[in-house]
């Protein structure tokens, strides 16, 4: 399926949960999904034989600044060899998004990483805890407004 058809199929199936599909030459074709419907959309894209997105290539957190965070899902189908991108936008005040761990196991660690470094909370994740940073770390370093702490566990950070 070409990206335009995938976008149309999603819109026809999920209606309001699809906040828009952008297909211009600049960005890779992507659809914006409501954060509380992303799991259904992911499951549909994986199990529908026409799309068959059996692989999640990458799951990235992004800080768009201005209080907006995002999650970007890069999907790929081994069967059809086509790609598509999903995007979810959440706010800093309410950084909740559905987990897709039950759809693609690979999302487990990627979501933990996005939680660790961006503070995006994935509802329904079986084991959501920090992965790269120590458990007692404060804050989420990849946020654009992150300040490097002066002290860590009472020790002065020398730079």
């Amino acid at each position, binding site marked *: 399926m070409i990206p335009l058809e995938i976008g149309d199929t999603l819109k026809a199936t999920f209606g309001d949960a699809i906040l828009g599909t952008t297909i211009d030459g600049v*960005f890779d074709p992507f659809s914006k999904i409501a954060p509380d419907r992303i799991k259904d959309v992911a499951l549909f894209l994986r199990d529908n034989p026409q799309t068959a997105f059996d692989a999640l*290539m990458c799951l*990235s957190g*992004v800080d768009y600044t201005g209080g907006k965070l995002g999650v970007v899902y*890069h999907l790929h189908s081994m069967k059809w060899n086509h790609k598509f991108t999903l995007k979810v936008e959440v706010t800093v005040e309410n950084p909740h998004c559905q987990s897709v761990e039950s759809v693609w196991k*690979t999302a487990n*660690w990627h979501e933990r990483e996005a939680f660790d470094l961006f503070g995006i909370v994935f509802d329904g994740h079986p084991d959501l805890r920090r992965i*790269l940073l120590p458990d007692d770390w404060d804050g989420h370093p990849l946020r654009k407004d992150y300040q490097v702490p002066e002290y860590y566990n009472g020790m002065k950070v020398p730079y």
Partner: protein
Amino acid sequence: MEATLTSRQVGITIPGFGRPLKTEEMVLNMGPQHPSTHGVLRLELVVDGEVVVDVIPHIGYLHRCFEKHAEAMANYQQVIPYCDRMDYVAAMNNDLGYAVACEKLLKIKIPERVEYIRVIMAELQRIASHLIAVGTYGMDIGAFTPFLYCFRDRERILDIFEHTCGARLLYNYIWIGGLSHDVPANFQEKVRDFCKYFRPNIKELNDLLSYNKIFVERTADVGVLPADVAINYGASGPVLRGSGVRWDLRKNDPYSIYDRFEWEIPVGTGKMGTVGDCWDRYMVRVHEMEQSLNIIEQAVDKIPPGDVQSAVPKRIRPDASEVYVRTETPKGELGYYVVADGTTSPFRVKVRPPCFVNLSALPAMCRGAMIADVVAVLGSIDIVLGEVDR
């Protein structure tokens, strides 16, 4: 029925000891400093006697937030030395992925000469990385000699790199739109010499290690990863191909000029046990070294003359857009998700490291195995912690 009872249900009585021994599950800590973890990785093993019930990997000991570094750099070019330091035994492949991503952002075509030299470098680096992988894997299993043989051959590749760019491990050689400098005059001759020298050594390695009875006993039928599970876990590279999936980005999603060469994708066939066992993953790497030699031999004769630096200026400013580019490194699919905001430094660089993703499949491979098998399975994934943690 009796075969399914665990030791806990049966209890163990020792003659002369007043009561049955208590048996229960135990947590065993493996690492962070452990010879078989290839770096600082901690595995929490939940074991029932000698049988592994679950594995919980703890990572992050080498975390230095590459992605934050990348955002803080003054320009795109400065990120490359940090890419070197992710998978530090395959630095050329890391640089190549980032360079390809940035070139796609800039929508530029780079000179033929650069493409050919990059392919040769990337494939030499693939051989060097696989030599470490199979050498240390042999050592994990208990065979020390193949390790020395592998490192002897790897030295030859590092010599070629040193001759080219002065560095042996972290090269900063592949730049956006070009190379840091041209290859020396007798480069092609040296590469041809290496190919001639190395090809018989693969057979030697097979005789010494691959078909060794003890090695096969330790790796065949151990840590089996079925193909559908591998895909669901996002596994890539030799881990995915070991499970019998004929998938290599150099052929299936070609970048650079890989579509011009004749070569095969080796996959696991279950020759010694089950498809997707440790031996298959190991053997895929050995076969890949041979295929890399084929690519190098085709490329080295065709390097066209030309310039390697002038394709882009030092300071680049891509328009606001984003790309996800993936390349096949020795460990698997290395993805760069680069977001540009129209300034001279990247807005966001997300790395999808192959080792990180492959390692997340470790518990699926280890459940039900013996403690000693965990070492065999971990070695067969071939992780580099610098890349897992970034």
